[in-house]
């Protein structure tokens, strides 16, 4: 096959040509993943979309084989996971890949989100692309929570109890919603059954939203570290082989680190108490979620009112939906925003502080720290972003991507 500058591809293989004439999948792949014009100045932050996609596929594949040996029954679940670990051939590897994979999937997505924040990828015309991304994040959190319940350890059970009880804070219908989640009077076998059904379903919904995310991405193409639009062929390179290679390289590094955890420290990111079977009559000394949910857990606990805490926690993610309209600056990339640039890093530190507080019991200094960090989180989005866009004087933007890239080389 051959294709020059936007001309429809000509397929030499007759079978391929026959299929493509009826269902143009080959033209689609050629257009969107081969000749697709992509800004030539990506840095390694632009690897993480592809990395996250690979992690999603990996989670689905390991999840399907785990489901073949898992028993979604409160009497059998815990033992069935131990059986996967000890008796099922390569079962330990599938489970460790799946549980470590969840952490690495979130890590990739968080870096991907940071990239979007720093380089202003959420700004026009990519608002819907960003919003679809936030939907994916919410679905991932729900899926991760549901999956964490399945091994039916102490933290599974009590995490499920605490999170499902959040919904009882909703006025009027709260208690009915909780009963519908539980299918009984407490977290029990019916709960485990429905959580398993949903945990199997949601990843495929994530796949569908990822597809929309990619479609939206390919309308206007990727943002880039300079945050300016490509003005012509001199600013872009074809996606393949340039970025397939760059993504492949970044992915390999990422997977090496991931494999290091899978093989040498699979439980390092987990809670030991989840290897104790669920007991509805004994609450563990401390209930903590996995690391990737800790900042939101800290926000929940920082508010001394049940409904208020729930609103703040969901609000901390919901606020991302309106981020494209809260940021009043028209300059996308922080490279040219001398003040805001630093506040992005302050926000990152703030979220890390929240995460640290979320991992510790709500006493003394941790209460104060998590309250201050929660206030700052909302201050960043609701006050700082709108005002800074108005008063900050951005640095002059380069005339084009090619221009900026060549100038850098010359220096």
């Amino acid at each position, binding site marked *: 096959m051959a294709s020059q500058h936007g001309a429809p591809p000509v397929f030499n293989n007759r079978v391929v040509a026959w299929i493509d004439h009826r269902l143009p999948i080959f033209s689609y792949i050629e257009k969107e993943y081969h000749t697709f014009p992509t800004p030539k100045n990506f840095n390694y932050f632009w690897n993480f979309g592809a990395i996250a996609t690979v992690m999603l596929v990996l989670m689905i594949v390991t999840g399907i084989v785990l489901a073949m040996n898992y028993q979604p029954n409160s009497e059998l679940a815990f033992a069935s996971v131990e059986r996967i670990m000890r008796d099922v051939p390569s079962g330990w590897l599938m489970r460790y890949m799946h549980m470590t994979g969840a952490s690495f999937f979130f890590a990739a997505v968080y870096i991907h989100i940071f990239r979007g924040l720093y380089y202003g990828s959420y700004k026009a015309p990519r608002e819907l692309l960003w919003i679809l991304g936030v939907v994916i994040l919410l679905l991932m959190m729900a899926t991760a929570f549901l999956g964490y319940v399945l091994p039916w350890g102490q933290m599974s059970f009590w995490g499920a109890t*605490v999170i499902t*009880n959040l919904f009882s804070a909703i006025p009027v219908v709260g208690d009915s919603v909780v009963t*519908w989640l539980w299918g009984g009077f407490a977290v029990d076998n*019916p709960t485990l059954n429905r959580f398993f059904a949903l945990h199997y379903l949601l990843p495929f919904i994530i796949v569908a939203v990822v597809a929309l995310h990619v479609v939206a991405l390919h309308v206007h193409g990727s943002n880039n570290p300079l945050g300016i639009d490509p003005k012509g062929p001199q600013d872009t390179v074809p996606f393949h082989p340039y970025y397939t290679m760059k993504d492949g390289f970044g992915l390999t590094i990422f997977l090496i680190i991931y494999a290091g955890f899978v093989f040498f420290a699979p439980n390092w990111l987990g809670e030991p108490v989840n290897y104790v079977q669920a007991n*509805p009559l004994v609450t563990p000394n401390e209930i903590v979620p996995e690391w990737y949910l800790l900042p939101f857990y800290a926000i929940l606990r920082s508010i001394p009112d*049940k*409904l208020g805490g729930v609103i703040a926690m969901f609000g901390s993610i919901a606020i991302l939906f309106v981020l494209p309209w809260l940021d009043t600056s028209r300059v996308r990339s922080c490279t040219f925003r001398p003040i805001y640039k630093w506040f992005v890093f302050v926000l990152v530190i703030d979220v890390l502080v929240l995460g640290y507080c979320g991992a510790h019991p709500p006493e003394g200094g941790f209460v104060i720290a998590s309250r201050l960090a929660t206030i700052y989180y909302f201050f960043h989005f609701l006050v700082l972003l709108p005002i800074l866009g108005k008063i900050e004087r951005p640095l002059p933007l380069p005339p084009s991507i090619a221009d900026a890239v060549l100038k850098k080389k010359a220096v």
Partner: protein
Amino acid sequence: MASSGSISAGAHGDPTRRDFLFVASGAMAAVGAIATAWPFINNLNPAADTLALSSVEVNVKPIAVGQAITVKWRGKPVFIRHRTPEEIKEAEDVKLSELPDPETDNARVTDTAKKVRPEWLIVVGVCTHLGCVPLGTKPGDPRGEYGGWFCPCHGSQYDTSGRIRKGPAPKNLAVPDYLFSSDSLVKIG
């Protein structure tokens, strides 16, 4: 609906037979959609066998004064405390204005036959904040500043009547329906 012009609007812009049919069939479709959705939502409610496990009988005779036990009811812990006279007095003396969720101690120790037994406090052992099991039933457990229960998850504190006094929990520990069939036998649920 009349906006589709001469076809649907009557001579003077009045609703036509077609408008009526649109609205009527649309309304029926909406009713049908809701009626179809209901069994799917209802399907999430507790099943008959789950509901059947809804009561439990306990012999409280072995519980000494000052002691408390935990029994399992509907998958949840229930605390039965044999209160000391000091604990009863402490619970009764609190002014209702000091309580986040005002309720008299008397109302919390009355069984379904309206008989008051202040020595027996029976509450669901589930923190009304986010559902942890508060500590304070076993000897040696921390019981909080008010001598009742202390929830280790988010620091809620309950008094000797199981009422919330401090911390994020919004409500008192729930009192289940119970009935003393004799002085030593109680049926919960």
